[in-house]
């Protein structure tokens, strides 16, 4: 039986019940959310389960949504089942004041630098990471540049009037 999004959804809901939320399928990729204390449990289940076999970690990244109070930061895991060639996306939201999320380096060695990158750019604190320090930016940096409060262009510039283009 091919592994479809419906079977994956049924399988994980059977295991975790109501705790997994926000099921969507943008552009065909099954996406759902897990509570932040449960990310490791869910990933472990997805890895170990004989039917699901999500054993390849494609990517970890984060996004900052300043307009969602209590869920400002999200860590996004892209997983791949290479046998059935299915990809899924798992999202774990956290508030920005205490952005602690369990590391998955125990499960995937690839997660090491991906988590360091996410920490570097968005300030997500991966609990239990063996070497959580900045990776691409200088160590002396005291902020996390991909957060939305850091605008890209110098806002004091007056030679460019954004209002003219509806951006103001």
């Amino acid at each position: 039986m091919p592994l479809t999004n419906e079977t994956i959804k049924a399988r994980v809901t059977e295991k975790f019940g109501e705790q997994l939320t926000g099921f969507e399928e943008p552009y065909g990729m099954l996406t759902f959310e897990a509570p932040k204390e449960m990310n490791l449990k869910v990933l472990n289940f997805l890895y170990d389960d004989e039917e699901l076999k999500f054993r390849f970690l494609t990517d970890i990244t984060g996004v900052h949504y300043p307009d969602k109070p209590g869920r400002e930061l999200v860590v996004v895991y892209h997983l791949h089942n290479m046998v059935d060639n299915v990809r899924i996306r798992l999202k774990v939201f956290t508030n920005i004041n205490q952005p602690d999320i369990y590391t998955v380096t125990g499960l995937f060695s690839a997660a090491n630098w991906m988590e360091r990158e996410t920490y570097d750019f968005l300030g997500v604190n991966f609990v239990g990471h063996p070497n959580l320090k900045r990776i691409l930016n200088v160590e002396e940096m005291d902020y996390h540049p991909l957060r939305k409060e850091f605008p890209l262009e110098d806002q004091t510039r007056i030679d460019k009037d954004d209002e003219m283009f509806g951006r103001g």
Partner: protein
Amino acid sequence: MSEHNIKLPEGSIEKTTTTLNLGPTHPATHGVMQNILELDGERIVSTEQTIGYIHRAFEKLAERRPLAQITTLTDRLNYVSSPLNNMGWHLTCEKLLGIKTPKRVDYLRVIVMELARISDHLICNSIAGVDAGAYTGFLYVMQYRELIYEIYEEVCGARITTNIGRIGGFERNFNDIAFQKLEKFLKEYPRVLKEFENLFQRNRIFMDRTKNTGAISAERALNYGFTGPNLRAAGIDYDVRVHTPYSSYEDFDFNIPVGTTGDNYDRFLVRNQEMWQSLRILEQAYQKVQEFKGSEAEVYHADVPEYYLPPKADVYTKMEALIYHFKIIMGETEIPAGEVYNSIEAANGELGFYFISDGGRTPYRLHFRRPCFVYYQAYEELIKGGMLSDAIMTMSCLNLIAGELDA
């Protein structure tokens, strides 16, 4: 008297290992990468990698740029095969916008992508030869990389940072010179590749240097997120072109070469075989492109006026074209909201683009999944316990491109 003046760091008398700083600007690292090695004699005990020396904040920059301007950022990821990155980016945008490209565009893209793959593998393999002390092969094949760059030049006007193609297709049709050069390449390159192969493949010195060095098992390679030739060298036949075909790759007949041991020699062989397979794809693609006759042979982009620049003559004479021209140039086109992950088989492995749009004019968030970045973290495991000179070979056979590593 003098011994009182020298202040040695605590514990340095008892220390039995040597600390060696390899890089960031060392000719053998081919890029700005630093490794702080602990050596016991010439054997490596441990290493700490420092990366980020050419970090240019592309992900942040992309948040203020309209789609067309992000193509130039992707050029600078893996700058040895920029067209692959460009195509990956266009395909991601097309997936998000739901654009279907004509077959001829797909085939032309395949031509460009496979040329880029050949040039990338060619550099990697010939540089591996240079690192082992064989300079001839590198100089010899460089002529044919030059020919590939000349083809890019005919297609888009640039050579290294190509900015090739547009959303929906190409900015112009391939001209006759491009096809003539492609024909020349298809005719001459097999002989050159064979000669290059003869120079290295059964070369005793090269084999001694690369066999059993930097090896990784298939299981560890998967756990480390390896993709591309490095994963296939370990024996796993994962190739995005076959697993999730894009740009009509399903129309082509080609094999996926795999290795067995995952060592440097297998990486070399896999890349070498991939060049032969790319040649096969190129021949088929060229044939398919020639089958389009008459007005079909003039098709080089999809009909997407909102994202594809109109011809300049129309801009001056037609109102709609003028509006679209203005909106595209000024970056005023609204991108539909959505979230998409799209990946292609770049020369180093799976190059992914994770694109979140909130309906604005620029991406809300854009993340590049760079294959180099993912597999370079395995470097310590690959070189531990080996000789220092093997670590250099491993670095060049992994094909680390600093631009891609640091984004």
